[in-house]
């Protein structure tokens, strides 16, 4: 019964999306004016119905209703409740339903509250949103129905992939989807603005909170994903340029560029066509990323999400949505009237440079990710890794970071570099000082050297916009920018410090032996077998002392799962303010010795700390923007109210 209710709600929501598309498009024509009135309510109801459908699926999973095929395939009555709940989206159909639910709710929210844009642009935006949603509804209803019944009803479900039974992973997909959906709203705004050619500050202000919100979620998603790979994969690395990591990085790069160009458009009414294009590109990158992961066209560690047939479906959706949007862009962008002018040395100029650099890095990552495919089409097999991405990316990243330090100090419209020279000389000197000190240490690679030299100066420079301000009256968005830029400097420091100063030790040790790595002395006590719910493990018992301090017990494990047979290593970490000790236990060397892999990674945690700061910066800016929007709405309401009273 609940399954049927969910399916009916999903069909109705899909039908309403169709209605929203038709009414929105006709509403734009001269004769269809009367239809325009239904678009907003339809969008709201569509969101609610889709939400109802998703709630039905959650209920089915929580009750473990095994007559539903999807539940039987992915759940188990003996599973802990939280995994039953999270299992709702721990599979292809459920995750797609979650995506379209968040998307339609966001669309309904926009329909309900967004009143700044011209009504025609709103109609086109909501029609665009309905168009994108329709593709997902069709995908769900025709090729991945989550409510399909199975007969006969099995006695027990098949359980969830053990790798996915991790609380962090349970919330990984929703985080990403919030990010992608935010970008889909930006995409729809861009479509709406292209259709009506109304690109201006109002459009930018309407779009900005969605871009900011999406960017916060993507930043958190990438930060968390990187930390997960770091502690779970047991290689001591935190970024592998794996296709899936790239798929998450590309929308982030596009969203970062969009975030900055939207600010220019909102504040100065410049960069019109460019902002619209980034709005299209950011969501396109989300879709391309999803496609690359789901289709299995590139092999990667995320191979459990692979399904070629569905990949083809996503490709068709992708071709229609992105191809359509870019065609519209080609047709209309030239007639989007030119924005305000500005000098090369100005806040806008710096932001344009940042945008170009981010886009270049995006292009580099996209090219590197697709290159194996390109080579294969020409009959060669290659894989692309850090030796390409790191130096080629740095060519653009380093100038971009320098401009990031100076840009916020420049005035809008036109400025002279001479004016800020006196201010930036202090961070510049700091950069030179650190570089000079580092030059005495040998064995530091070129990129870590540049990173370490820049980090301190960048951190200092990122605080400079606060100089001379009354800190209590400084607007939240400025605090947000400062925090995010400081976070970039902090993360850069962590990355460079990890590459420059990490000490790695691979030893074969007998129980009782002591290993030293950097300032740490680690006593290897013994190996013990331990058993988990669906795995057994060999656990190493070790005592680690930092610089003669108190002993900390650490227990890295080599785990063996039996369904499916799989071996994973659970690293043991000791976190200090100045870095992390990372221990992995490996194979039995055969003669009573065990392979131990130990790293001392100074300040490696700064990478993720920086990531969180960046997201926090976004959050501050978001709160500031939304609060001032609310104030404006309230003030307008008051004026309207007073006028109404005077009129009577």
């Amino acid at each position, binding site marked *: 019964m609940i399954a049927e209710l969910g399916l009916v709600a999903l069909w109705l929501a899909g039908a309403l999306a169709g209605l929203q598309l038709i009414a929105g498009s006709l509403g734009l024509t001269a004769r269809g004016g009367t239809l325009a009135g239904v678009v907003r309510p339809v969008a709201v109801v569509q969101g609610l119905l889709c939400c109802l459908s998703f709630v039905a699926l959650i209920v089915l999973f929580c009750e473990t209703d095994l007559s539903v095929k999807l539940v039987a395939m992915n759940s188990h009555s003996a599973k802990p409740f939280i995994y039953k709940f999270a299992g709702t989206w721990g599979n292809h159909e459920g995750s797609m339903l979650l995506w379209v639910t968040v998307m339609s709710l966001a669309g309904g929210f926009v329909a309900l509250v967004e009143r700044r844009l011209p009504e025609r642009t709103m109609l086109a935006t909501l029609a665009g949103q309905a168009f994108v949603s329709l593709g997902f509804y069709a995908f769900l209803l025709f090729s991945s129905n989550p409510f399909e019944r199975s007969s006969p009803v099995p006695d027990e479900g098949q359980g969830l992939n053990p790798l996915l039974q991790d609380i962090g992973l349970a919330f990984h997909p929703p985080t990403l989807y919030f990010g992608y959906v935010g970008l889909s709203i930006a995409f729809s705004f861009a479509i709406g603005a292209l259709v009506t050619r109304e690109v201006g500050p109002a459009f930018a202000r309407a779009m900005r909170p969605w871009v900011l919100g999406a960017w916060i979620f993507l930043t958190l998603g990438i930060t968390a994903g990187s930390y997960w790979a770091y502690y779970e994969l047991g290689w001591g690395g935190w970024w592998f340029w794996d296709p899936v990591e790239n798929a998450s990085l590309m929308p982030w790069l596009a969203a970062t560029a969009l975030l900055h160009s939207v600010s220019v458009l909102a504040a100065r009414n410049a960069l019109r066509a460019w902002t619209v294009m980034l709005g299209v590109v950011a969501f396109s990158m989300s879709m391309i990323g999803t496609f690359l992961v789901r289709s299995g*066209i590139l*092999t990667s560690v995320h191979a459990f999400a692979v399904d070629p047939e569905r990949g083809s479906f996503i*490709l068709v959706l992708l071709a229609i949505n992105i191809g359509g949007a870019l065609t519209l862009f080609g047709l209309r962008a030239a007639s989007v009237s030119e924005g305000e002018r500005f000098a090369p040395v100005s806040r806008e100029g710096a932001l344009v440079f940042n945008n170009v650099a981010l886009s270049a890095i995006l292009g580099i990552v996209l090219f590197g990710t*697709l290159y194996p*495919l390109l080579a294969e089409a020409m009959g060669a097999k290659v894989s692309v890794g850090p030796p390409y991405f790191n130096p080629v990316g740095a060519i653009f990243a380093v100038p971009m970071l320098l401009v990031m330090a100076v840009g916020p100090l420049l005035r809008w419209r036109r400025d002279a570099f001479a004016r800020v020279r006196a201010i930036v000389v202090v961070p510049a000197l700091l950069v030179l000082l650190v570089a000079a000190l580092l030059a005495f240490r040998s064995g530091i690679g070129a990129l870590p050297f540049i990173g370490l030299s820049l980090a301190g100066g960048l951190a200092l420079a990122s605080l400079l916009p606060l100089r001379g301000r009354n800190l209590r009256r400084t607007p939240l968005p400025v605090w947000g920018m400062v925090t995010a830029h400081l976070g970039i400097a902090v993360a850069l420091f962590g990355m460079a410090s990890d590459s420059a100063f990490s000490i790695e030790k691979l030893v074969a040790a007998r129980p009782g032996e002591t290993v030293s790595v950097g300032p740490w002395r680690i006593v290897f006590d013994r190996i013990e077998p331990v058993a988990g719910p669906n795995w057994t493990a060999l656990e190493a018992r070790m005592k680690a002392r930092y610089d003669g301090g108190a002993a900390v017990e650490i227990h890295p494990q080599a785990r063996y799962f039996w369904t499916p047979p799989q071996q994973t290593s659970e690293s043991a970490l000791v976190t200090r303010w100045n870095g992390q000790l990372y221990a992995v236990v490996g194979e039995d060397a055969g003669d009573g010795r065990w392979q131990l892999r130990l790293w001392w990674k100074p300040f490696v945690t700064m990478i993720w700390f920086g990531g969180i700061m960046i997201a926090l910066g976004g959050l501050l800016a978001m709160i500031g923007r939304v609060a001032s929007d609310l104030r404006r709405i309230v003030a307008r309401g008051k004026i309207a109210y007073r006028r109404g009273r005077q009129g009577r």
Partner: protein
Amino acid sequence: MSDPAPEAAEVKPRRWTLWLPLALFAGFVALVLIGLMRPADREVASAMIGKPLPEFALRPAFPGRPGLSRADFVTGGKPRLLNIFASWCIPCAVEAPQLAQLAKQGVQIDGIAIRDRSEDVSAFLARNGNPFVRIGADDVSAVQLAIGSSGVPETFVIDGKGVIRYQHIGDIRAGDVPTILRKLAEAQ
């Protein structure tokens, strides 16, 4: 406009550049379509296939057994398997039953032990069985690199003229045995 207009400005893009994103995207779709059409082939094809074995002569991996040289393959007779292994390699122990099965079916298998000690090799063979006719010792991986092998274990099908016909990377699983047998038959 009376105020001094800034010299450089947001230049209006040329018309054709506006179509550039669409062109790039079309290229992406075309590339992906080609990728989807091609049969899924995730094996690494060896550049050495079709090439003759290089000249080499290795000392025996342990005393009292024959060593291995190129001449042992150029027999004009049946194709042989060349297995690259090491006593310190765990997947090599995993593939031992499959090699034994192949040997039992009459396949002639020669081995090259990589960076190994003779006592370790004999202990390994005592533990896992010895499917090999000859075993050469490659102490510096010279022969291994010369035939295009990058790790252990790897297995080559060599025809009667000493030409490499097939390279299997990684351990031979039970499911790989039919493929190996087919490649041997093709190399006749």
